[in-house]
């Protein structure tokens, strides 16, 4: 009987946020929110927050 393959250690994830990501579940390709002008409030609904959680999933958006 063949030996079972050795267990693969879980991945470590790079620190820091990603600029963008295409989510397989939702299909959304997230983009960073537009840079708000210094005196402007961020405009809701435009752009999608970027970033990833350290688990390999996209950050909540």
């Amino acid at each position: 009987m063949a030996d079972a393959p050795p267990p693969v250690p879980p991945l470590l994830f790079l620190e820091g946020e990603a600029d963008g990501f295409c989510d397989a579940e939702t299909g959304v390709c997230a983009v960073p929110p537009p840079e708000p002008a210094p005196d402007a409030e961020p405009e809701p609904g435009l752009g999608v927050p970027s970033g990833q959680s350290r688990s390999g999933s996209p950050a909540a958006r």
Partner: protein
Amino acid sequence: MESTAEVATSTRLTIDVWADVLCPWCYLGEQRLSTAIEQSGHAGDIDLTIHTFQLDPHATTQLTPTLEYLAKKFGAAPDQARAMEQGVAEQARAEGLAYEIDRPVRNTFDLLRLVHLGTEHGVGWEYLRAMQAELFGGNQRAYEADTLIRLGEQLGLPAEEIRDVLATDRYADAVRADHDAAVAMGARGVPFTVLGRRLGVPGAVSVRQYTAAINQAWRQVNG
């Protein structure tokens, strides 16, 4: 008599990248990763492997304009879809990449099978990048067989092999296996990069971050 002097050798660093042809962030991320590899000082000691990851297996085989696809898929208003695309386009152009918003979307399964043919011939990464350059460059025939054959032939792939892949289900299992492997490692989308089989980078990051990842993984594999 042979010299017994020991020569310091380094262990090669593997970099595995999962991507889809139509994924804009893969297109950007691959460019940035390539730059980081060139700048790392380890380019000659890195084995870069492309793996496929089909983002939308249910996408139609009919061509659909990108903005129409985004509107249908996410319910995005045309202005919102265009704004999303323009955000990526600006970053792509900053990398020196062509980026046409009004490009077609279609199911990429056949293209991903061809990437595996490219990999078998040692040019999988280059073939994927060439397909993306056509697609994001705005070629409305980017998905057509004649385009895929032309790109493959430029990389030394035999046209008859490309036609054979397109006419059969060759490499279908390889596409599914690549997808499953990425999901098993925790990928929820692409690009997804693994360095030294240990360090994961989900999403497209900056050249600086890719460089940091290469350095970190290099230290891990070479002590």
